[in-house]
């Protein structure tokens, strides 16, 4: 769906559809999600808990839990469809080409092995070092890159603070110099000061190493700080995607607008925060029309029957909403 005339994007996800098939029914976690990621670009993936953003990311690495199935779509990394690879080729892609920053502050490190050993393991597995000893200089270098002295590599995760663990997690994610780094809620469960440090670190590394980063978060302020482009998901589908300024200055989808109204705005301290009434849709019992229709203030007849498709209504600005038919973009800011 991209009309960019330049080289093909680094990562081109087309119509990704992921379902969970469970005894309680089929959960449509991600439906027809398409997006592109350019080299060196930082993309924010935003939405409420359970909107499918983490599922979409785990789908890219094919790390879904047993019940999860990628039922359709393609994920082209430099032209190779990741969903067509066999398991051993896929293992070679993981971490070496696409790595993931989990919530390191929580339990992403094995508690009984040293942090250094766990970073070295990735290097040895992907053939970047013969053994632990040979990996050591690189491990030290990685740790120092995120502001941890190399000597602390021989310590265990429980001897680190939450912020340090998250930085070590970032160091580990960069071990094999991947092209794409997916950061899944990297600042959740950290206090505000540490959050700012981690974001700053991520942004600096992204710039210096020319990484393409997908930042998964439910926090729009994080996106505003770090990302070039934003993708808003609601109920497993794309709601809106555009340059980061567009989201804040000219949000088109009613959901995006409600989402922004639910965040504090420092320039309008007297403005009231408004929560969105209702609940996100249950992914095993979706409404037939637009998934946001039951909570939308601007809902009309068509929204209840027909599912809106993403359309490019302004240059680089995509939205899936019947209010914004192609070319008929009405300015509502």
């Amino acid at each position, binding site marked *: 769906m991209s009309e960019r005339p330049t080289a093909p994007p680094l990562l081109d996800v087309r119509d990704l559809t992921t379902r969970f098939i469970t005894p309680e029914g089929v959960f449509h976690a991600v439906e027809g999600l398409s997006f592109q990621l350019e080299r060196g670009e930082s993309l924010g993936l935003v939405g409420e808990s359970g909107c499918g953003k983490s599922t979409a990311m785990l789908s890219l690495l094919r790390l879904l839990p047993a019940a999860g199935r990628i039922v359709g779509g393609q994920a082209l990394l430099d032209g190779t469809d990741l969903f067509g690879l066999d398991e051993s080729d896929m293992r070679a892609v993981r971490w070496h080409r696409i790595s993931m920053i989990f919530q390191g502050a929580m339990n*992403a490190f094995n*508690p009984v092995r040293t942090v250094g050993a766990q970073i070295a393991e990735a290097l040895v597995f992907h053939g970047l070092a013969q053994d632990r000893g040979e990996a050591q200089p690189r491990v030290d270098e990685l740790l120092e890159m995120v502001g941890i002295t190399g000597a602390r590599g021989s310590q265990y995760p429980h001897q680190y603070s939450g912020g340090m663990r998250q930085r070590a997690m970032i160091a580990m994610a960069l071990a094999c110099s991947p092209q794409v780094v997916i950061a899944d809620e990297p600042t959740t469960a950290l206090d505000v000061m540490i959050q700012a440090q981690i974001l700053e670190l991520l942004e600096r590394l992204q710039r210096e190493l020319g990484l393409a980063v997908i930042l998964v978060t439910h926090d729009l302020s994080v996106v505003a700080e770090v990302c070039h482009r934003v993708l808003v998901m609601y109920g497993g589908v794309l709601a809106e995607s555009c340059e980061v300024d567009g989201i804040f200055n000219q949000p088109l989808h009613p959901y995006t607008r409600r989402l922004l109204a639910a965040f504090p705005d420092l320039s309008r301290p007297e403005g009231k925060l408004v929560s969105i009434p209702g609940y996100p849709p249950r992914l095993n019992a979706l409404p037939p029309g637009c998934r946001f229709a039951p909570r939308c203030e601007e809902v009309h007849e068509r929204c209840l029957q027909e599912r809106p498709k993403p359309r490019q209504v302004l240059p680089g600005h995509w939205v899936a909403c019947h209010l914004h038919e192609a070319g008929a973009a009405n300015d509502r800011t």
Partner: protein
Amino acid sequence: MARRDYLLKRAAWSVLTILFVLILNFFLFRILPGDPTTSIAKDPRLDADTRAALAARFGLDKPLVLNVQGGGLFDSQLFAYVDRLAHGDLGVSFNYGRPVGEILGERIGNTVLLVLGGQLLAIILGVGLGLLAAWKNRTPLDTGAIIFSLTAWSLPTFWLGILLLIIGSTYFGLPTAGRQTVGMDYASVWAQAIDVGRHLLLPTLTFTIVLLGEYMLVMRSSVLEILSEDYILTAKAKGLSQGQILRHHALQNAMLPIVTLIALNLGFTVAGAIQVETVFSWPGVGSLIYEAVRRQDYPVLQGAFLVIAISVVAANLAADLVYGLLDPRIKSP
């Protein structure tokens, strides 16, 4: 430094526990109804004079705790027992008329031969099978392993023993009782070892089967629990294969509950397997205790229980130390 303090504290607690058990044992067996002199004489028609003489010979005429009738306050059964123990003397068996230390020495060797062999086999097979079942979770192999383990675990020991005894002796010509063939002249140590081995086969097998199920089930659930941890997802994302994840990230963590179980079971090694030893007439500690209870042989019971208490306490101490090695979060070694 912290390690030495920890060890000293653990050791002090161990000694206190053993002292407590030592005193408890003394009273425990004297609460049993009946009069030991009846079984000592092995004849119910004993006249009162002989009975009194027997009681006096074994010190049973003295008061239990404190002598308030004269002849010194501490001239009692309890203090005589403690005094002898302090000199390393476990007393003389009522039944065998031989020193308890000597009898226990013979029996413990036999028991360790049987129980340790069975335990080791059960641990190796059970842990291996549990790991395999967890790896092949929700496959017919897993289901089969669970059914086998539950069945093995719920079989009555004596029933399985009798069954194996019948099958082994009828179809495989294996001996039915004792430690070695009675009255046999061995050409060499080898010949004797083979004979003992043949006697050992069936009781060990019984013991192994009965214990196997528990190890397998605990190991399986332990591994499954670990496999659902966040750091296992990290390991997968790093590109590790299922086998590498099991070896490098699951095994060590999953061993913790198994170590507890092994320590508890090994601690009771010297207690023998009363049922197995009785069915196969194996001259071990288990059958000794069984016989001693029937005959109210206080010194043998006290001695045997003391040795059991010491080995249970020692096994727990060992488990604590192994914990420290397996899990760096435990601050011991």
